[in-house]
């Protein structure tokens, strides 16, 4: 089992790597971070060029000497950017030398600025040789001992070094990691925490409701309950979730006034703390209903079909013939075998959860990662969008790994 886990983890990391490259390529091919300039108008071409240059530098689309990078270099720069910064950047040092020379040429020797600039000049000139050599090493990263030389420079990292960028348009220059994971000390209130609460609760609730419905429907086949459940499951599968959410708001918030229609706390009515479980649950009811309806419909139908197939098997007949009670036959023998394909179905449903989260959070104004992503998409905030896609891919792959392990645990025939 441990070897299987290790192998599976390595596989997961590889898939994550491929997924991240696919996401980056897809977004890069559709325009990349520069497409935020599409809708904007500029006073003249010069202003547009300046903004373009600034963005290209910010998103590592060009080398330090402003030469264009090809797509592989861009992806590598995004992942583990090795561009040096500050005193390791020869272009930065060259600019300092030029500025110092200009000041020296225009001031009197002996004045404060003259001596300052002389010192700065000497300092920069002593460092620039090493910096240029290191930069050369970073350009041809994998030849000779360039790798160690380049890794020793002081640099701005990429995704793998923890530099996920700052958000341009969604939150004014706030670091993306802080935006998603919350300020230190407030991690439980962060967008990611809110969304995870929503998603895990919806998974658990779907499972808790779909299981009894599916079992009952299979055991009492062709009864009224069975027909009702089957027809209702069609309804659930065909329901557009955003319409369902809007209808719920219409009925329960506007016409009946029972449930609040958005956010996670009532800001005006009671200054409830974020930890007040009652208030949070009240705000969670409708979003959970929207998220779970399609899952419940699909899973209960699937479980019903799976149970029906299992109940026809010979070993179940043997169990009946042995005189076991109905509960023992169904729960202990039939259900355990019927659950196995359901695990696969649940694993396949995890990617769809994030799409559902975006829609649900948008309708109910729920402060989670979904609304963050939605705003980022609307204003083309590249770092936030990439961060969301990366996190959700990671969680999906993690979910798949859990599903595989659960599969191995649930099915005793599988031995790795």
């Amino acid at each position, binding site marked *: 089992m441990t070897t299987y886990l290790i192998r599976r983890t390595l596989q997961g990391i590889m*898939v994550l790597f*491929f*997924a991240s490259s*696919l*996401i980056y390529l*897809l*977004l890069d091919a*559709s*325009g*990349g971070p520069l*497409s935020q300039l*599409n809708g904007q108008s500029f006073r003249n071409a010069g202003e547009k060029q300046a903004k373009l240059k600034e963005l290209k530098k910010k998103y590592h689309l060009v080398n330090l000497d402003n030469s264009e990078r090809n797509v592989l270099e861009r992806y590598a720069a995004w992942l583990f950017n090795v561009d040096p910064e500050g005193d390791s950047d020869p272009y930065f040092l060259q600019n300092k030398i030029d500025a110092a020379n200009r000041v020296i040429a225009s001031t009197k020797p002996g004045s404060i600025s003259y001596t300052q600039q002389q010192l700065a000049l000497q300092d920069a000139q002593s460092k620039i040789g090493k910096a240029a050599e290191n930069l050369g090493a970073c350009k041809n990263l994998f030849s000779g001992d360039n790798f160690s030389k380049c890794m020793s420079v002081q640099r701005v990292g990429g995704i793998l070094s923890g530099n996920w960028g700052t958000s341009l348009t969604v939150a004014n220059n706030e670091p993306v990691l802080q935006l998603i994971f919350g300020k230190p000390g407030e991690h439980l209130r962060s967008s990611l925490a809110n969304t995870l609460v929503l998603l895990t609760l919806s998974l658990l609730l779907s499972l808790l409701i779909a299981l009894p419905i599916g079992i009952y429907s299979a055991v009492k086949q062709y009864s009224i309950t069975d027909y009702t459940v089957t*027809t209702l499951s*069609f*309804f659930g*599968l*065909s*329901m*557009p*979730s*955003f*319409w*369902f959410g*809007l*209808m719920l*708001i*219409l009925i329960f918030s*506007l016409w009946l006034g029972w449930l609040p229609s958005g956010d996670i706390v009532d800001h005006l009515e009671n200054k409830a703390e974020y930890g007040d479980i009652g208030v949070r649950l009240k705000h969670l009811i409708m979003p959970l209903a929207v998220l779970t309806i399609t899952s419940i419909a699909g899973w209960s139908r699937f479980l019903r079909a799976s149970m029906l197939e299992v109940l026809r098997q010979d070993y179940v007949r043997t169990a009946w013939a042995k005189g076991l009670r109905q509960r023992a036959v169904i729960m202990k023998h039939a259900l355990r075998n019927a659950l196995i394909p359901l695990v696969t179905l649940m694993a*396949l449903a995890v*990617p*769809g959860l*994030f*799409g*559902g989260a*975006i*829609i649900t959070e*948008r309708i109910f104004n729920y402060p989670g990662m979904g609304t963050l*992503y*939605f705003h980022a*998409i*609307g204003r*083309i905030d590249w770092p936030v*969008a990439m961060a*969301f*896609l990366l996190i*959700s*891919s990671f969680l*999906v*792959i993690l979910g*798949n790994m859990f599903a595989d392990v659960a599969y191995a645990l649930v099915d005793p025939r599988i031995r790795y």
Partner: protein
Amino acid sequence: MAVAQNTLDREVVSTSKIESQLSVTWRRFRRHKLAFLGLFILSFLILAALTARLWTPYDPYAAPPPAVRNFSSPMYKAANNDVFILGTDDIGRDFLSRLAYGGQISLSIGILVTILVGLIGTAVGAISGYFGGIVDSILMRIVDVLLSLPFLPLILAVSALLGQGYWTIVLVLTALGWTTTSRLVRGTIISLRNLEYVEATKALGASNTRIITRHLLPNSLAPIIVDATLNVGGFILIESAVSFLGLGIVPPIPSWGNMLSDAEGYFTNAPLQIIWPGLLIFLTVLSINFIGDALRDALDPRLK
């Protein structure tokens, strides 16, 4: 002896009339009453959308004359004697006409994307399933990676970067939606390619293309058809979700999704505008699901 003969006679099915596969399928399809309801609703909606230009009284894009009030309720008669059967929307355009043209857009995107996804998915799945080996490995690795990406967020991101429009959304949905079909086709082809008639055809010297196109694919049509039918509903849902979120089809072009998002701020004024577009999406997808389920039962090779 006579009793045994009778029971034997009763069990023998009459083979004097040879039924084609189509008529067998139709006979089995006929048993599902819900599917006929679905067919009825769906054909009504498709017909209404196709002939929208003929029967809608007003232009869905044009700005209305100032005499018309916005957010009116059904059967509203304006000051200039125009009658609006379902009322007007937030600018004053006729709601019914917008629903019809929106139906055109939503339904056509669903069908078009399904056809494209069917073609691409079948091609990839057939090649992958038939040839096996390294081709299969590579293609299925790509499919696996694509399946482990969150679908809607990626669609939103690419739509936002590529811009809005009909063909953008068609392109994005096709490019990211062909994976489930290809997996399905690959599974079917794998289960078929080891059968004896394929071996016989190979022995007779048929080329690979001929085997795939003339022998394997026609026999694997059943799951492809069911999958395609259910996909139409799925893509209609996804397209309306994307339009609802503001990407894809944007106003003034009506799509059932963006009509819902237009109406979202006006809960108290015009609740009907929230009910109708979503209801139409729901009915369409429901009908498609009924039909698809009945087709699946009718085409299932295990129940003969």
